[in-house]
Each structure stands twice: as structure tokens, then as C-alpha cells.
């Protein structure tokens, strides 16, 4: 088994990296893949809470790096989905606790055991981000349709390009079609035009994301709102399936199912 190692990053904080990591990891596992999600945000860990696994933490990634345990002992198996694992990080340490070389080694070890390794990167462009990305082959860049988030995503894409990550693919999170229509929000095509990388998913703004995060239950586990479908579609696209984009335009919607229509990506 040789896993694909994918870093989930954004530059700006609060755009939904951790939620995206949790949902995509869960969706990939639901499809039958063996997946591990690593929390790369040392000192500000959140992935465990969003995946609902915080009460099962015994060892963290940092313990393994300090030699207190083996990497395999840090793996937390998700009881709800077969083949889904998570590696938590330490809340009491800082980004200096990990080096890029260590992350490369950890990823290399996990590659043997998994199909997909997802690394949830911290916000920013400093060591934390660089370490998280060090062991990855590919990158998912999460942005929201806001000028500041897009500018930070652009910065991150430039850095990922210089680190030779490929492919670098884009997720536009929290889009509100009604605001786009009124010209109050950047559209997906605006974002794509600026960032000029491949789009792999559009996730609509959805209140259920907040409730599911608070419950520690990734949206794709039990619910079926548009955001959950969007995350599932992204997971399918990662596996190489050609899934059409949802049409988030509510103008033509005829009831609940009518809202889920296909193909708007601006192209």
C-alpha cells in the first residue's frame, strides 16, 4: 500500500480547513479507503474535537516524535467508520515541537499502511504550515469567497508551487449563491480566475456544518445537506471519479431536491 499524502491548507485561518479535512477523510473512508487524518496544528489542535475523538486520545504525534511511543500507538480508530483513523497532536506544545524532516518520516511510515494520509495544516505561512506540507505530495487549498481569504490562498499556492506539490487543487468553501447573485460575494469563477488552479469542490454555506462540528460528528457521517454532498463529491474527485459540480443556484430550485442540481463552475 502506498498512500497519497495530501495537505489541507489555506493561509488564512477560520476558512474551514479542519472541517474539510474531517469530512473528506470520513468520506474517503466511507468509500472503502483506509484513511488517516493527521492534526498538523500543534498547540491549537481541533481535528480531534471536530471528528469527535478527543476523549480517546492517549498518545499524540508529539509523543511519538519525542520517542515516548510508536506512531502506530498514536492512531485513533474511528468506531463509526471502518478504516478511518486519526493522529492527534499536542495542545500543550508549540509548532517548534515538529520539524519538516520528522513530518516527512511520519508520512513515509504511514504511506505503507494507508490509502490516503490527510494532513490538516495550521493557518499561516510559517514553520507550522511548512512542516505540515513537508511530507505531502498533493495539496488541497481551502478558501472562502472573500478577498482576504483569496489573497492568502494565492500566497499559499505560490509557496506550495515552490515546494513542488502537485496537484494543487482548490476548494471554495461557504459560498452563498444568493449573495453571489446580488454581487455581494465573489463568485466561484472570480476565485478561480484569480487563483488559476484546478477546482475540486464548491461547498455551500450551511448551518449544519457548525452543529456537526460542535457535536463532533462530521457532516458526511449521518446527514445529507448540500454541504455533506459537496464534501462527498470532493472525496470522489480525489479518488479520480468525474463527478459533476452541484448547481447551487436556488433560483431554479423546485423543492429540496431541486436545489441539488448540477454544473455551475463558471465554465
Amino acid at each position, binding site marked *: 500500500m502506498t498512500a497519497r499524502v495530501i495537505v489541507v491548507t489555506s493561509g488564512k485561518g477560520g476558512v474551514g480547513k479542519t472541517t474539510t479535512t474531517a469530512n473528506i477523510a470520513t468520506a474517503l473512508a466511507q468509500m472503502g479507503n483506509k484513511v488517516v487524518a493527521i492534526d498538523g496544528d500543534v498547540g491549537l489542535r481541533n481535528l480531534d474535537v471536530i471528528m469527535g475523538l478527543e476523549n480517546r486520545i492517549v498518545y499524540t504525534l508529539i509523543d511519538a516524535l519525542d520517542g515516548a511511543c510508536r506512531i502506530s500507538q498514536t492512531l485513533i480508530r474511528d468506531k463509526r467508520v471502518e478504516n478511518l483513523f486519526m493522529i492527534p497532536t499536542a495542545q500543550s506544545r508549540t509548532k517548534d515541537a515538529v520539524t519538516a524532516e520528522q513530518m516527512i518520516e511520519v508520512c513515509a511510515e504511514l504511506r505503507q499502511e494507508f490509502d490516503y494520509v490527510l494532513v490538516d495544516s495550521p493557518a499561516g*505561512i510559517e514553520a507550522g504550515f511548512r512542516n505540515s506540507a513537508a511530507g505531502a505530495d498533493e495539496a488541497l487549498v481551502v478558501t472562502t469567497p472573500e*478577498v482576504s481569504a*483569496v*489573497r*492568502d490562498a*494565492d*500566497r499559499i*499556492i*505560490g*509557496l506550495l*508551487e515552490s515546494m513542488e506539490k502537485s496537484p494543487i487543487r482548490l476548494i471554495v468553501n461557504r459560498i452563498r449563491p444568493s449573495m453571489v447573485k446580488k454581487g455581494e460575494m465573489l463568485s466561484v469563477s472570480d476565485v478561480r480566475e*484569480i487563483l*488559476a488552479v484546478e477546482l475540486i469542490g464548491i461547498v455551500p454555506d450551511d448551518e449544519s456544518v457548525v452543529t456537526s462540528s460542535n457535536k463532533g460528528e462530521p457532516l458526511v457521517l449521518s446527514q445529507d445537506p448540500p454541504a455533506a454532498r459537496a464534501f462527498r463529491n470532493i472525496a470522489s474527485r480525489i479518488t479520480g471519479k468525474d463527478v459533476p459540480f452541484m448547481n447551487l443556484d436556488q433560483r431554479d430550485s423546485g423543492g429540496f431536491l431541486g436545489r441539488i442540481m448540477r454544473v455551475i463552475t463558471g465554465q
Partner: protein
Amino acid sequence: MIKLKGMYDSMLRCIISEDMDAGDFSKEFDEVRGKGQRFLPGAKVVLDFGARPLSGELIGGIMSSLVWPSGIYVVAWITYDAATQDLLKRIGLPTREPEPSVRAAEYAKSGMLFLQRSLRSGQRVDHAGDVIIAGHVNDGAEILAAGHVVVLGRLNGLVHAGCNGDETASVVARSMEALQVRIGTKIGSLDRDERWWGKMVIVRVNEGSVFIDYWPAIKSENREEGIG
């Protein structure tokens, strides 16, 4: 009133206010000479008269009350009055704004930089010559060029043309979407609701201010818009 300002290449600019009465010249020049007796002898000075017309007699007066006694070396006599320019040229006095020497020297070294890619946020190009970008300059990207800058895509980021003080440098963008453009020591700002936003423009410094104008349309473009 007369003002003395520093310029590039350690030159001075002597700005003679347009509304000052010609009768006060001699008194004002005395004052300038008094204040500048330590640094004026041998200094390179641009005399800037704005739009003031000068007669031959007045020019003679300036020579005898300022130029000769102060020991300055006049590099240019700047006026926007066409008749005066003509008169100055006939006498054989320099009327062209001097070009910074750094430009000529550095150009010889570095020439033009042609980049066939877009600049992303945080990426910076620093070049001692002209820069052409065959791509976009995204928000948060920066270009510092000693010479001209041409952006063949969207200009969202910051461009500083003539960054060593050369105000003859210009910025051309295929789609102008930047809130600020810097040329030489000047800063020009633009609002999103201005008519140049998103258009192909040229930005230059004229009379000490940053000016923006449409890049002249070619005939085929005029036809498309039904103008020509």
C-alpha cells in the same frame, strides 16, 4: 515665493511660484542665496517656473541675481509656457527635465526582465530595469522596477516603476485593478468606481502628479465598440 527641494542624483529643484510678482524676484533670490550659501555653490539645480512666461530681460535678471552670484549649475530651465520654452531654446539653455543617471547606468547592466507567468500574493520582483509580465499581478504581489512596467494581464498588486526616483517611468496594464501605483517618488491612487478600473491604461507622472489614461485603442477594438 521660492522653494528649494531635493531631487534624485543629489540635484536641487528650485520652484519659483507662478503667482509671485516678478518685481520680487531679486529680493527672493537674495533670500535663497543667503539661506543656501553653504550648499548652493556648485550644486546642480533645476529651475522650475511652472507655467510662468519669462521675457529675455527677466532671464537676464535671473542670471545676474541668482545663477552667477550663487555659483549654481543650472541643469534645466523648466517652464510650460511654449513661448518661453522657445526663447530658452534659442538662447541655448537646457529645457528638458534631466534623467536620473542611475537609470542609464543600471539599464546597461540589467536591461529588461520578461516574466512569462503570473505573480502570486507575496511574490516580489525587484529589477533594475524595465519589467514585462506576461501574466497577472495578483493582489499582494509586488513589482519594483527601476524602469517601466508592463503588465499584459490583470494588475491587482503593487507596482513601483522608476523606483530609484525616475519619474519618466510609466506603468501599462491590460486590466487596471490596483488601488495604488507608484512612479518615482509619487503615489497615485485609484478607486474601484473610477472609469479606468478594469480597463487598459497607462500611468505616468506629469507635472509632479500621477496621471492615468486609457491606453490608446487600436482600430479593430474601436470597431468592436462601435466607436470608429
